[in-house]
């Protein structure tokens, strides 16, 4: 009997928050944020598998709840519930309506992605979630948040593009785009390597794995406690969840690729530990723990890729691990946010501002001379490159905590370590 209920609930889980997202609706309802989560919570509680097929909707969309995705659903329901409680509207009066709309949009995106039964549905809902998070980020914060948001947006667009290409490759190989079918088909397809790397980089960007962690650290350091809670747990979990679902693990051993991925994972962990010890402010603790945890998960993924048979044993473990990681991150942010309380502005800020100003002047100088010399050729490629660098520069200025010289020393040590680990693994 409860299977029918679950199917009905399946429809409402995603549709209900989307419906509430319309400002006219949620401004009239009491506590709209909690209302939106109820169907998802019910579904998480009800045992048993259920699936819903909508062949006429957008390439045959479908959603399903099963053992594995229940973990993630439970995790996200928990996080969203806590976030719904503690998210307080920022100072602008009209912002409250806006924050709730973005909150609900992101919620719908997240739940949709969790329940999606095929690649296209997953891709759509992760994009919706991404843009929703961007909205939340910009809406809640100040200038730093806006810069972090712009960085997140660029990461989002590039990740979407890569995932779209991967999706194309999958669609070219198989007509039916359900996860399991795609995994088998892609395993022995000729473009498997290409697909693996596209999907991996796409989800690494979304989850903020080590080389692409910039937006994660920027977000943590800039936003208020409640949004950090969301922005910490949710994208990281969904990134990893997507990676597990998309990557063709389990059939064919990708020797070299697996080794590289494991290498990245280890490097991430080491980099996170190093940065954490040199970092003074406690506020960015959750950021570096997130990077470390994702690094560890990536190592496990690499292992799975390298030895498919081993992966089958602890595959079912993957989803609970993701859920735990997300929950742990959320609680960590919550506790630190509570401890942090009043005093803000970590000690290092002043020194950073000075280097930022110097670099900005240098860029402005060459911008001006480029402008008047090439004023006529506005559409020439390199003037646009200068404009682009000035724009990206504003994002990067928040990232150089210590002098340039030490930065290089750190990188060399890390690469040495990386070499060592690879050598050890290759044995």
């Amino acid at each position, binding site marked *: 009997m409860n299977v029918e209920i679950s199917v009905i609930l399946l429809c409402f889980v995603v549709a209900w928050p989307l419906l509430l997202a319309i*400002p006219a609706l949620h401004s009239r309802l009491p506590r709209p944020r909690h209302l939106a989560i109820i169907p998802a919570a019910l579904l998480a509680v009800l045992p048993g598998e259920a699936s819903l097929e909508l*062949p*006429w*909707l*957008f*390439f*045959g969309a479908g959603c399903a709840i099963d053992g594995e995705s229940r973990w993630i659903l439970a995790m996200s329901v928990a996080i969203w519930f806590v976030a719904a409680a503690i998210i307080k509207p920022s100072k*602008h009066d*009209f912002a409250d309506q806006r924050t709730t709309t973005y909150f609900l949009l992101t919620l719908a995106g997240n739940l949709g992605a969790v329940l999606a039964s095929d690649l*296209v549905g997953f*891709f*759509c809902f992760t*994009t*919706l979630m991404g*843009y929703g998070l961007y*909205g939340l980020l*910009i*809406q809640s914060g100040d200038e730093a948040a*806006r810069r972090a948001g712009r960085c997140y*947006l660029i990461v989002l*667009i*590039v990740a*979407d*593009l890569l995932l*779209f*290409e991967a*999706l*194309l*490759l999958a*669609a*070219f190989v198989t007509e039916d785009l359900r996860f399991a079918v795609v995994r088998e088909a892609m395993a022995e397809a000729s473009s498997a390597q290409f697909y693996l790397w596209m999907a991996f980089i796409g989800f690494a960007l979304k989850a903020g794995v080590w080389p692409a962690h910039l937006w994660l650290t920027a977000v943590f350091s800039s936003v208020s406690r409640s949004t950090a809670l969301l922005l910490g747990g949710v994208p990281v979990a969904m990134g990893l969840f997507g990676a597990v679902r998309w990557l063709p693990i389990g059939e064919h051993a990708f020797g070299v690729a697996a080794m590289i991925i494991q290498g990245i994972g280890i490097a991430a962990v080491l980099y996170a530990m190093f940065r954490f010890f040199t970092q003074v402010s406690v506020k960015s603790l959750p950021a570096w723990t997130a990077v470390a945890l994702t690094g560890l998960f990536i190592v496990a993924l690499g292992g799975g890729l390298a030895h498919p048979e081993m992966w089958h044993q602890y595959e079912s473990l993957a989803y609970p691990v993701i859920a735990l990681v997300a929950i742990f991150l959320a609680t960590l942010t919550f506790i630190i946010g509570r401890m942090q309380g009043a005093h803000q502005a970590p000690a290092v800020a002043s020194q950073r501002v000075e280097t930022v100003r110097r670099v900005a002047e240098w860029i402005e100088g060459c911008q001006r001379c480029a402008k008047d010399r090439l004023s006529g050729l*506005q*559409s020439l*490629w390199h003037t*646009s490159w200068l404009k682009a660098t000035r724009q990206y520069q504003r994002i990067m200025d928040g990232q150089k905590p210590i002098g340039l010289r030490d930065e290089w020393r750190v990188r060399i040590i890390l690469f040495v370590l990386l070499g060592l680990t690879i050598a050890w693994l290759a044995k």
Partner: protein
Amino acid sequence: MNWNSWLPLLVILSSLLPGLIIFGLAEERIRLRTVLNLAGALVKLALVGWMLWGVYHGHDYEMRLALLPGIELVLRAGPLSLLFVTLSAVLWLVTTVYAIGYLEGSPNRSRFFGFFSLCVTATVGVALSGNLITFLLFYELLTLATYPLIVHRGTETARRAGRTYLAYTVFGGALLLLGTVWLYTLSGTLEFTPQGGFLDGLGDEHRPALMIIFALLIVGFGVKAALVPFHGWLPQAMVAPAPVSALLHAVAVVKAGAFGIVRVVYDVFGVEFAVGLGVLGPLAWLAAITIIYGSLRALFQDDLKRRLAFSTISQVSYIALGVAIAGPIATIGGVVHLVHQGLMKITLFFCAGNLAETLGIHKISEMNGVGRRMPWTMVAFTIGAFGMIGAPPVAGFVTKWYLGLGALEADQAWVILVLAGSSLLNAAYFLPILHRAWFRAPSDAWPEERDFGRKETAWALLLPPVLTAALALAAGLLVMLPFSPLEWAKLIAAQEFYLP
């Protein structure tokens, strides 16, 4: 001359007759003019619906009229022509409602709506033409009908914009005429023959001549489809009132050019013959260059309508690209983009018109916080913009999906790079606009605000963009329904261009 063969002519007359009557109307007869306009649009929609139903069930609608000894004017309603006719009919109705609202109280409206109807008559004629000479006839009529719309405002800049527009299009028309006559002397017929075109018989000795003819025809159509070297007129034609630039860019002129390219490659030369001639490669490269160039130029435009114009230049070349990659799936992608781009672009232009008409905003830098003041217009704009970028639920995603698959199937991987690059550039010039509109605090006063009481703007201005945005979303979401643009494109690919 049974009933079936009169239908195409009736579709054309349904906009020609109101147009001619409206020309005669005095300026004050507003109500009669509105009634005539809407009646014409609704009658056309009904007739097109009837033909859609008929063609879906295999009927054939054709009408022949002797033009020259040996050459006839042919109006035939096949699946491909109906795709374009339906797009024109739907968007004409929407644009008429919009134009009535937009031109409230402005002078010369009888003249405007007269030429407006002539323009749509020419577009429908282009869509329904059964051979190259009828196509040429309506194609040139389109140039003549759109010129007065561009110079409608009567200012000096409008005249100069009109002059550049004519310089390009008449030049294109001359090349087209030369190409058509030369083709006629070689092949002896100009009839559009689906599934392989009518040039297979010509042996090798005509090979260089046919290559030159292909180049002539593609340049002739490329002028209106705004391929790179011939796109100069499009941004300048922005001086026209909003409904004109909406009609020109989304439905009539630009699409006629792209539709011409589709006809030439599939129904005149036939894909295998074109591939044999080796002419599709350069066309693909030309389209790719246009896509990237259009997006790059759009990046630096501060005027909203000019940015949309450059975005049109790059978007229309998707159709040319889809056609140039000679695979069945790429064809579907190219052909379906004809409709999708129409829906999305007309929404963007309607919103741009609303902003200009209600708040006097022309520059993107003036658009801070406009989402707050005109929420529904900006929601429509956002849907259109996400469609242009290719974000999932909206129609643009479907086109990029099929073009990507088509490129993979024809193993031309470089096309995917072009598509990816273009999506990035689209994001680079659309997202800042959305960011400004939604997340920036509004400036204290708008350039020239017109008060509409509680509503954000007149309903005639608000309804069309919201409607076309919903259509764009539906074209994306309900993509599997039988009468959706995608299914119809598949029917076209299967029935008309039967590719091995």
